[in-house]
């Protein structure tokens, strides 16, 4: 596109839009996302996302497995900052297909783990968002706290990132003895740290000015584009699968669904999406506190099937991952090998809105918008 502009002294000046590649190697695309930008100076006119640089053939791999259980390590690697939630979604889908009832203790431990994982994932989202905006220190504060959550996970299942902990019908290990005391300590410390984080970043005026009124996503557009999780709640839609379609034992806990209120700018801007994540961490702590108080006794492996061979059929199950609705569509043909597994990854769907909400913003705003969508490329590309 070329436009001819007449300058004040009558000469014609030809201006041309510039096409510039942001990524696949760029610090604020959070991985290997490539955004093809059409820019007019600092103003972004169009954004064309190109994904697939981290495609690891999750669905193809799943069809080659001899056992449903073997899919779980692959599911871990989809959303590598929130593996527990991915495992839970897959386990729920497989259990729905197999029609197995799981012991209550398993459900409680799953909830504790997933909420811890949600905090860990939101910490990464918040920390890296700080970096996108240019504040480096909150990032390391967030990672400091996340390390303690990972320590808890390592204590429980032996791995820090890719757990293979939630199995179909059960868990790989019961909680170790020191788990609950360590967790209680963490909760006390973490409450203070959230306040500190708010002082340092959330309510910093520069941060607010950088994120308020940027990347405004109206609620109806968000729903039509299939956005979920903090993206949707940031736009003021009170929709959380944990509350609205309770899976596992979430209906037994008392917590609030955090929504954006447009406190510092328009409803549905980057700051709203950000603050929803900060508030959700507090709600997760509440759920964990209730869960450890009422944790029932039981055997965590009693319902694990010896051979996983579902009847022919298909199931779609969804759960609320830190990024939104993570669903698995599993189709079985009666053998031990899944016939088809499709992952509905929230980051993939949320990312598709990026060109819609970032037209007309500046390059620096684009970093803010990409950060507020909170994508994990492992999940986008699978």
């Amino acid at each position, binding site marked *: 596109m070329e436009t001819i502009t007449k300058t004040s002294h009558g000469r014609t000046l030809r201006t041309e839009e510039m096409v510039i590649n942001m990524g696949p190697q760029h610090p604020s695309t959070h991985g290997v996302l490539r955004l093809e930008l059409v820019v007019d100076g600092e103003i972004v006119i169009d954004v064309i996302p190109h994904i697939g640089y981290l495609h690891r053939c999750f669905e193809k791999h799943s069809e080659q497995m001899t*056992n449903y259980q*073997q899919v*779980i*390590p692959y599911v871990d690697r989809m959303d590598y900052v929130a593996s527990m939630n991915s495992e839970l979604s897959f386990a729920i889908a497989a259990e729905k297909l197999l029609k197995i009832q799981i012991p209550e203790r398993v459900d409680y431990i799953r909830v504790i783990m997933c909420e811890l994982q949600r905090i860990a994932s939101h910490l990464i989202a918040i920390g890296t968002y700080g970096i996108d905006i240019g504040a480096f220190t909150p990032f390391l504060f967030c990672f400091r706290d996340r390390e303690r959550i990972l320590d808890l996970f390592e204590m429980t*299942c*032996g*791995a820090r990132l890719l757990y293979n902990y939630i199995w179909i019908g059960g868990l790989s290990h019961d909680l*170790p003895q020191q788990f609950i005391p360590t967790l209680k300590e963490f909760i006390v410390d973490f409450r203070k740290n959230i306040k500190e984080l708010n*002082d340092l970043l959330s309510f*910093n005026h520069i941060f607010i000015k950088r994120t308020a009124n940027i990347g405004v996503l109206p609620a109806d557009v968000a729903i039509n584009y299939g956005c979920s999780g903090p993206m949707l709640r940031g736009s003021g839609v009170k929709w959380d699968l944990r509350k609205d379609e309770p899976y596992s034992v979430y209906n037994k806990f008392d917590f609030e669904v955090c929504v954006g209120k447009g406190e510092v700018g328009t409803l549905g801007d980057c700051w709203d999406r950000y603050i929803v994540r900060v508030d959700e961490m507090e709600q997760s702590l509440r759920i964990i506190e209730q869960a450890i108080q009422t944790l029932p006794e039981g055997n965590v492996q009693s319902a694990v099937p010896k051979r996983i061979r579902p009847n022919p059929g298909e199931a779609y199950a969804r759960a609320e991952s830190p990024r939104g609705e993570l669903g698995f569509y599993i189709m079985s043909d009666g053998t031990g090998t899944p016939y088809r597994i499709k992952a509905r990854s929230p980051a993939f769907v949320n990312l598709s809105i990026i060109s819609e909400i970032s037209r007309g913003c500046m390059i620096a705003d684009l970093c803010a918008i990409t950060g507020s969508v909170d994508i994990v490329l492992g999940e986008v590309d699978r």
Partner: protein
Amino acid sequence: MNAITEYFGNITQSLKTISIGMGVTFKHLFTPAVTIQYPTVKMKLPERSRNRLYVNMDDCIGCDQCSKACPVNCIEIEIIKSTPEDDLGITSSGQKKKLHVPVFNIDIAKCCYCGLCVYPCPTECIYMTNVYEFSEFDRNNLIYNFAKMTPAEIETAQIKVKKMDEETAAKKVAAALVAAQAKAALDATTQTSTPQQPTEPQ
């Protein structure tokens, strides 16, 4: 008027929040660090930590369960049948071993540390240790060979099996051929690379 209050509000807000932020960072200037000086200081690993795989070959009965459970196919096992007069010993759990295991390779570069191979093992001879520092310059060095049989032993075992097969029935000729092929394959691998013999960690 509104614009003016907003203008001065912005300025005071900025100065206020900046000083709050500076207070937070200043406080942290004097809080002790949370990082440790790896590798001189190491974190204590929890009991359940999953790191490098180890196989206790004395207990392995060559059942191939771990290899089947592996989602990334990083375990390679070959077996040779034993003759009735062979005494292969018993495992620590008292089970009688019936198969020679001439090849037990784990490609630790492919391993995804999921631990799925550990659970099905009937004799609990494959397990994850707490060794996590084993980087190598050559990827081939990451293929660990756990089998203890020497080439001579393998050959005698194969000859014995062959003999037994010839003696017993003609239908077992096919099985002997498989073993011969296995030997050829093994020769080929030993020529190209000499996988190291890992030791059990302390």
